[in-house]
């Protein structure tokens, strides 16, 4: 109760400080919340950017494509590597070593290869989402008790049945976590790609607003994009909880 009051107070204090700083500071650099709200209304009323819907849809499509590819490739790759201990031990560390490299180093090459359009964003979103999914599948397979698999095989279960009844339930927990992380990273990948260079999509709108010093519109665009990102993660979290309940 008191904690909630303190937190709300803190939030209000930050907003108030932001308001004061925004009013005192250069309006090109600082936007007070009181100016962000009308900007958001204008944005959502399609006044500042009439084609907002198209950009939003493009970004969404890029995300769906990137994530879809990442899931398919990540799951396939994870099971391929997980099918043999030798493969897992050889390629697992190589994959992990790639984690030691900030992913954005690959983006210029992707941009060169796929151009400035959607393809390079999809490729980058795919790349970011692919790794956590692959590693989660690998980790999940390691959690399967080999004895249970042997028992099921001994009772004459087919490979498909073993997979459905033994392997999937024991790896689901880890797998679903990896799928959620993968989605979050695919979303970020697409938006980073758009901000770093694009002609369409939410990232390009952000860049446009920033380039023209339309700072209030920029803040409004940030809020809309944030809703997109937080919304996708919330949806993933609901699915995650449902899948985990199903395991128990």
């Amino acid at each position, binding site marked *: 109760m008191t*904690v909630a009051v*303190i*937190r709300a107070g*803190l*939030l209000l204090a930050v907003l108030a400080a932001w308001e004061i700083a925004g009013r005192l500071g250069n309006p*090109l*650099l600082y936007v007070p919340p009181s100016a962000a709200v009308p900007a958001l209304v204008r944005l959502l009323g399609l006044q500042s950017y009439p084609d907002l819907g198209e950009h939003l849809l493009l970004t969404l499509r890029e995300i769906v494509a990137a994530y879809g590819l990442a899931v398919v490739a990540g799951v396939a790759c994870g099971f391929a590597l997980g099918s043999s*201990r*030798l*493969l897992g*031990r*050889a*390629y697992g*560390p*190589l994959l992990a*070593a790639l*984690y*030691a*490299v*900030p*992913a*954005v*180093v*690959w*983006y*210029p*090459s992707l*941009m*060169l*290869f796929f151009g400035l359009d959607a393809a390079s964003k999809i490729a980058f979103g795919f790349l970011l989402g692919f790794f956590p999914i692959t590693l989660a599948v690998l980790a999940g397979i390691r959690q399967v008790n080999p004895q249970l698999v042997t028992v099921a095989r001994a009772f004459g279960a087919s490979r498909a049945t073993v997979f459905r009844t033994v392997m999937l339930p024991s790896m689901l927990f880890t797998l679903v976590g990896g799928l959620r992380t993968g989605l979050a990273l695919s*979303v*970020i990948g697409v*938006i*980073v790609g758009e*901000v*770093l*260079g694009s002609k369409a999509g939410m*990232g390009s709108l*952000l*860049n446009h*607003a*920033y380039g023209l*010093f339309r*700072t209030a519109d*920029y803040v409004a665009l*940030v809020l809309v*994009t*944030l809703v997109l*990102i937080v919304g996708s*993660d919330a949806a993933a979290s609901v699915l995650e909880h449902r899948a985990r309940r199903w395991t128990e």
Partner: protein
Amino acid sequence: MSRARVRLLQALSIAVLLVGWEGIARGGWVDPLFVPAPSAVVRAFGRIGAPALAGLGDTLVKTAIAYVLSVVLGVAGGILIGSVQAVRQAVNPFVIALYGMPKILVLPWIVLLLGFGSAPAVVYGTIHGLFPILVLVTGAVRDVDRGLLTVARAFGARRWQLYWKVVLPAIVPTVLAGMRLGVVFCLLGVLIVEMFAGVRGMGYVMSSLANGFQAPELFAATALVSTASIVIVVSLDALNERLSHWRGDVR
């Protein structure tokens, strides 16, 4: 299944990948404008050598500053938030929210605010590196064994001694883990700013090469910065290993 076989397979796979790639590129199956042969990439190293190394140096200096800031602020903030319950309850949800928030959204604003010099890169790198360290250290401080604090109090420890003799040594492994995680994030932040609005540094070099369609040079630059990152992480790991050995931790 021996270690040697694993190593052999790793080396062999990389060799096959490089040789196959070279063959495909030479065979003319892909456009060398987009996918240069490894040999062309190696030759490109010679051409971009000096400016790329200068760019890398510039990037690493900014990363180092961002890293020091991240570690100092992250550890200090984590100790404050973790050890004072009132602060933790009030502030922690905001920290977690900021940690999870995609930092790319504030990138244009930071550049707008700080211009095109090194400052936005350092600030943005710090934002990336700070939060994982802050969150890890906060948790570690909160979870310091109460029993050890009671022992220290019973032996007459003053407040600063509780921090210096109990809390700090207890969180060392977490701080090291956070430092390992943070360095890649700092480098990531710095590179993104350089690609977005840089006038110097490796990110700028790479995005100019991409815009100029200089694929071999771009691949060489990518290899260079990746290698640098891996070397940094591996040496941090080695340091960590030695420290934990010295601390008597058993793996």
